[in-house]
């Protein structure tokens, strides 16, 4: 099976295990989702270095902080809703305020919770952790990127939130591509507008750019995989060069990527902005394709919103 055909969780655990062979500090904690997250394989690989705490997310985060106090690099795992909002005060005080390098891995973000439905659909996870000082927030887009950036994730000095799709992702990058945390990437050049996307929405953004090209619009597509610290330079340059921005995220448009980009534009170079994502709604149950339609997150929706921002750009200039 090629790298692109594999589930992200398998590539994640394989890469983390490779790193753990060399780095004794790496430990894994899970809260009764080892068989969902793939951490059961890490437990097989390193029986003394993985802890299943049971269904105790707050305790898991606290134990991870204590382990970090003894020099370990603990990775905590559960669904993104539980690994953020369920344990937010523990993440805030025991981890971040206390300055411990805990890595919080939230799986099934946003509409990827699919058949678990609205109760499990984290549409605020990026928002709540983004507001915590020193936190790095990363959403890897595909297996090539995940494998490439994980060593740097281990070595970051502060706490990290890794927003991780478990399933087979749409391949975006060629093997061997280099990445740098905090730096976005231009996936497609364009001069009329910039679409800034993250996670599962990057492939939709690229399809939207194809649709727009057929209509004579040249859209730049940027993958912002580090939502905090966000790549201010690239966003400002894109605003200057293309004059309009569309953000695309699998998250509430409040407090996530759309807000982060709006903050950058407001601070440095305001241009018309449209924010594609969940429009401050709760999630609901269903297949991912249905949810993309339901929450207006398809390539066609992105293209339509791009045309709206272009109309605003014309009015303005």
């Amino acid at each position, binding site marked *: 099976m090629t790298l692109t055909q594999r589930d992200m969780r398998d590539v994640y655990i394989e890469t983390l295990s490779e790193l753990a062979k060399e780095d004794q500090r790496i430990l894994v904690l899970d809260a009764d989702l080892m068989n969902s997250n793939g951490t059961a394989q890490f437990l097989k690989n390193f029986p003394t270095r993985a802890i299943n705490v049971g269904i105790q997310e707050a305790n898991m985060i606290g134990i991870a902080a204590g382990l970090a106090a*003894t020099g370990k690099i603990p990775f905590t795992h559960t669904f993104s809703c539980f690994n953020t909002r369920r344990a937010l005060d*523990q993440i805030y005080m025991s981890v971040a305020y206390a300055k411990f390098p805990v890595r919080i891995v939230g799986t099934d973000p946003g509409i990827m919770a699919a058949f678990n439905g609205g109760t499990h659909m984290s549409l605020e996870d990026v928002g709540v952790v983004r507001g915590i000082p020193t936190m790095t927030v990363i959403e890897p887009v595909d297996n090539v990127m995940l494998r490439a950036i994980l060593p740097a994730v281990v070595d970051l000095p502060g706490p990290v939130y890794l927003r991780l799709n478990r399933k087979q992702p749409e391949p975006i990058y060629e093997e061997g591509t280099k990445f740098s945390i905090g730096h976005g990437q231009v996936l497609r050049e364009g001069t009329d507008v910039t679409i800034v996307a993250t996670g599962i929405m990057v492939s939709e953004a690229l399809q939207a750019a194809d649709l727009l090209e057929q209509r004579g619009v040249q859209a730049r597509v940027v993958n912002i995989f580090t939502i905090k610290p966000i790549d201010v330079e690239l966003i400002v340059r894109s605003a200057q060069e293309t004059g309009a921005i569309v953000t695309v995220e699998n998250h509430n448009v409040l407090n996530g990527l759309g807000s982060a980009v709006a903050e950058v534009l407001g601070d440095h170079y305001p241009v018309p902005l449209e924010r594609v994502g969940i429009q401050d709604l709760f999630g609901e149950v269903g297949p991912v394709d249905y949810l993309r339609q339901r929450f207006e997150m398809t390539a066609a929706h992105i293209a339509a919103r791009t045309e709206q921002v272009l109309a605003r750009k014309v009015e303005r200039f």
Partner: protein
Amino acid sequence: MTTLSTTDIQRLADFATEIRVATLRQFGTLGFGHIGGAMSIVDLLAVLYGEVMNIDPQNPHWEDRDWLVLSKGHAGPALYSTLALKGYFSLEMLDTLNKPGTKLPSHADRNLTPGVDMTTGSLGQGISTGLGVAWGNRLDGRSNYVYIILGDGESQEGQIWEGALFGGNAQLANCIVFVDYNRQQLDGYVDQINPLGDLVAKWEAFGWHTQEVDGHNIAEIHSSILKAKAVQDRSSVIILQTVKGKGCNFAEGIEFNHHMRFDQAQIDGAIAALKGVN
């Protein structure tokens, strides 16, 4: 460690008085503070830092040191007095409690205060971080201990019982938990707000080696720690029957003594009374 001699007991009782006096002086520089829950853990701190703990005040980050996690972080000033008297920092620094730019905030902060091992304040979290430290030390094959101090009001937090379940099953013999059972919380008496019931039975049910002692009796505290250390196959908890505000004549016996305002004359009077009984 062996049983304490009469001289040792007197030395530790004197140390406890010194901690109380220094803590009252500290609070006196401000005129307000969490006096009740600070005074109730002083005798425990005297036994731990005066006798039991393997520490090096010149090297607070020494990897083989014993750790203290003050989960009831609002009792920080009592810990600061203890650490200053042990030489982690100067006694003059105690006058900076809560002043702008201080290294001594209301709630314990590992990144600010030499000798403070864990950041606490939001209640319920120190049991988990303490268990994490104990697990990490066990993984590394260290023989040091982690001491965790919980409040009784704090034991209303669900996270305490997540930790109790996990810690009971983990059988961390290098971890000893204390519960400062002073029976009072901010809004009054624990038994009138949300009672803890049979605390001994609860911890036993969670699989812990459980003891209950007089938290102001130096010899009892010490011997309970010896007994806990002799248990090799279980995590240990020691429930300390204490009095909130113990040794501070204007706080002890008062219903609302969790956080109080006071003037210098009250502080001076309390210090004089402490020295008188000593």
